[in-house]
Structure formats: structure tokens, C-alpha cells
């Protein structure tokens, strides 16, 4: 049964449809995204599905179906119960905070009038929701970081952020599963492989998971 006031549709391109479930980041919109995403992935002629905070972009084969076909399919799927949604999991991510693994931890502390230990305590003390995966393979958009450790991005991004880096960018926090350029502040690193292309599934985290960070020291791994 649809809990949303209704779906809004935007023709994003000649082969994609943007389904809008809300205008703000809310748990209700998130739950609608979680419920609808697997149903859309299984729909005929759907090529790719990009869930986000309150929307789902669907890439489709334009020679097989039209935007109208996808809209009708989405409206119908929206009436179905959440049968394809896996149970949300609690995932613990071990993190070595600071030192070589977290070169920006001291700056984050200084910019927020805290000690590095306090930053770690606040970051690791919260529980985070994986709103969706995007940006790069397995990168989780996490909600729930306390604003007391929010820190502006670097003025110039690093050319290379090592894989596993745990970072803060503005009011958000996340983990870089693969090395990439990045402008977020690196406060630690996890030895967990969040993305392994030859594993099934290749990505460790799922949309809807609850994540906590657990401080560990080098000797623990």
C-alpha cells in the first residue's frame, strides 16, 4: 500500500524516467525508495535503476517501452506490499581513527573546538542509516552524523583518497570503497573491503542498512 502522497514523474532523457517520491530527506520517502527499487529493477525493459534520497531514476530501453509505460508500471508497483525488501541489518565498520589513517582528524577537531578523541567518540557513538549507494561503487550516503563534527570540504580535493577511507564532508559522513579523488576530510580508515568485484554481491552494504563505526587499533587486524 502506498504511503506516499503520490508519485511525480519527470522525463529525464529519451531513455530515462525520474520518479520523485518526496522533496525532502525523510524516513517515509526513504522507505518508499527501498520498497520500490527492487520492484522497478525487475520490471521489463528496465536497464538500470538509480535510487537516491527521495527519488528513483529508471533507465530503460526506449525502443521497447515508453515513458508512459514505465509510469503506469510504477503506479501499479507502488500498490504492492514490500515483498522484495530484505531485512535491514546492523553492520559494524571497524575503523582505525587518526594517525596515518586519518590525516584530517586533527583539523576536524580544531575546526569544531573539540579534541581528536572527542571527535572519534561522537563519530563512533552515532548510528547511521544507509540512504542509498551512489557516486562510486558501494559508496554509502549515510544519514545521522551529529552536526557537532560537521566540517567543510577541503578547498582543493585530494587527487587520491585511499580505499577504505572514512571521511566527513560538510554535514555528511561516508566511506570511500575504492580509491578516487575526493574533497572530504579523512578521519580514519577501515580494513573492510566494501567493494569486491568478484564477490557476490560485489558490494558489502545495502540501502536501508544501519551502520555503526567501531574504533579499533592497528593490532586488531
Amino acid at each position: 500500500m502506498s504511503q506516499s502522497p503520490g508519485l511525480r514523474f519527470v522525463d529525464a532523457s529519451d531513455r530515462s524516467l525520474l520518479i520523485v517520491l518526496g522533496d525532502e530527506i525523510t524516513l517515509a520517502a526513504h522507505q518508499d525508495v527501498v520498497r520500490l527499487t527492487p520492484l522497478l529493477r525487475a520490471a521489463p525493459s528496465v536497464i538500470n535503476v538509480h535510487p537516491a534520497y527521495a527519488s528513483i531514476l529508471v533507465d530503460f530501453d526506449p525502443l521497447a517501452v515508453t515513458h508512459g509505460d514505465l509510469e503506469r508500471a510504477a503506479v501499479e508497483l507502488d500498490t504492492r506490499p514490500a515483498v522484495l525488501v530484505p531485512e535491514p541489518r546492523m553492520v559494524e565498520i571497524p575503523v582505525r581513527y587518526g594517525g596515518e589513517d586519518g590525516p584530517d582528524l586533527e583539523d576536524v577537531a580544531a575546526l569544531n573546538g573539540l579534541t581528536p578523541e572527542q571527535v572519534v567518540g561522537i563519530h563512533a557513538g552515532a548510528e547511521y542509516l544507509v540512504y542509498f549507494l551512489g557516486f562510486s561503487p558501494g559508496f554509502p550516503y549515510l544519514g545521522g552524523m551529529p552536526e557537532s563534527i560537521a566540517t567543510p570540504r577541503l578547498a582543493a580535493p585530494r587527487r587520491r583518497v585511499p580505499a577504505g577511507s572514512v571521511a566527513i564532508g560538510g554535514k555528511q559522513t561516508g566511506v570511500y570503497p575504492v580509491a578516487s579523488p575526493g574533497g572530504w576530510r579523512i578521519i580514519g580508515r577501515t580494513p573492510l573491503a566494501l567493494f569486491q568485484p568478484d564477490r557476490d554481491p560485489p558490494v558489502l552494504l545495502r540501502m536501508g542498512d544501519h551502520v555503526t563505526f567501531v574504533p579499533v587499533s592497528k593490532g586488531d587486524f
Partner: protein
Amino acid sequence: MQDLGRPGYAHLGISASGAADALSLRAGNLLAGNAEGAPALEMTLAGGTFEFEAEAVVALTGADFETSVSMWRAVDVRPGEQVRCGHARSGARCYLCVRGGIDVPLVLGSASTHLLTGLGGWEGRALRKGDVLPIGTTVENPQPPAKGLSGRAGEGASGRTGRLRHDALRVTRGPQAEWFDFEAFCRAEYQVSEDSDRMGLRLRGPALTPHAGHMLTEGVTLGAVQVPPDGQPIILFVEHQTTGGYPKIANVISADFHALGQLRPRDILRFEEASMDAARALLREQEEWLHALV
């Protein structure tokens, strides 16, 4: 190494990747007797010299790379023969397709290289001198027409692909088109910057300034014309991120995706609006052209 990419993983943040000019790759494979999406070599701006250990059948498509064998047709190669591909005379990409396909391990179902993450293809990287690639044995059409495309017909094919009509990319309106002066966008000229790559084509031109808008991060698709804070548009390309927070004024039509793969730094281009119906008709026509090749 490229093929038609790995769709189906965007919900995990994994972009489809694939050939920059998929139309040329598909044509080359059809001419070589392969399935359209067989793994092939993608060359950007400059090629290389390729020596074949055993006899082979190849087809070179895409832009004119001053190749040592004719393009846009199936060509027999003798054992020990070298096929040379020089610099792009115009356009940007050339494809070397080999009958049987090029046999690289598939990652998430595809031979496509995603350079940014070092995923797939040949060791996740660009090819280097000395690399030895195995040729596969999967042949879709053992009797492709011997004629292929030669001479003027071949020129016609390369004219069909790669070249923009009136130097304009046709676009449909993007999800945030009304934030901007769309008419001004279509009157402006933009230059392709040297910073362009498989992730995005960065353009330099009159800054696009939004007069509205707040948006959440949302999914983005191939060909989206994104406008970052500096107002210089970026056309999202094959290795684009799966989600983004910048407004999108327009989206290149599917039938013009091949032209994105043939843009060179310093090319000048404009944008021309197309309706969804026109876009679909142009794509259909393009598919008919492709399948009439063989």
C-alpha cells in the same frame, strides 16, 4: 578494452561504462561476424600497432585513424601481419574488432574497462606495448557479407557516425531545465576542454546561471548536461557517477551518443532542442541503419 558495458548495477553505485562510441563498436563487431557487444579495442585520439600471431578477420570502425588497412569492412589478416592505427585525422575514437571477440575475463558480466576505478577490461587499465591479448572463438555470424562497406559506402558510414549535424548536439530538456534560460543555452557556443575524459565532457562557454532551485542528490544518466556552481556545463559520459547533486539543464539524445564519443578537445559545439518523439524516431532510424550493415 570495451564492450557495451555492465548495466544493472547502478543501485550499487557502479556505472555501466562501455564504449565511448557504442555505435561504431557495434558496427565493427557486426562487420567482423561477432555479436554486437563482443569485446574490442577502443583507441582514443591515437592508436597503435597490433601484430596478429595467427590469421584473423578484423574490422576497424569509428573515426579515420590513418589505418594501414581499410576501415568499415571485414579484412583478412595473415599470421604475423601488423595492423597500424595512427592519429585521429578528425573525430576521437577508433575500434578494432576481431572475429571471435577478444577474450578477457568478464567482471560483473562485462569486458568493459572502467578506468577511474581500475575495474574490468585488461587489468583495469589502458593497454601498453607488449601486452598480449587472446582472441576468442565466439563467432555469431560465420558468413558475414564479404562486401562490408568499402570506398564511398565506407565514407558514408563514417559520415553517419561521429559527425554532428550542423555541429549541434540534439538534446531534450533536463529535469532542472526551468531553472535556466534554455533558449540562451541553445544559442551559445561551447568548446570542449582538454579536461574531458570518459567520465565527462567539460565545456567552456557562457556561464549558465540558475535563477531558481534547491535539489537533493538524485540519479543521473548518460548524456546529462550538468551545471556545477561555476556555470560551465559538463556532459556526463560513459564512466559517469550514478548520482549527482548538480542541476541538469538538458540531456543529449540517444541517437547522438556516438557523437559524444567522437568529440575532441577544442571542438566547438552548440545544442539544439529535440522533442522526445523526435529523439525516439531518430534512434529507431539509427538502429535500422546499423542492422542493414550486414
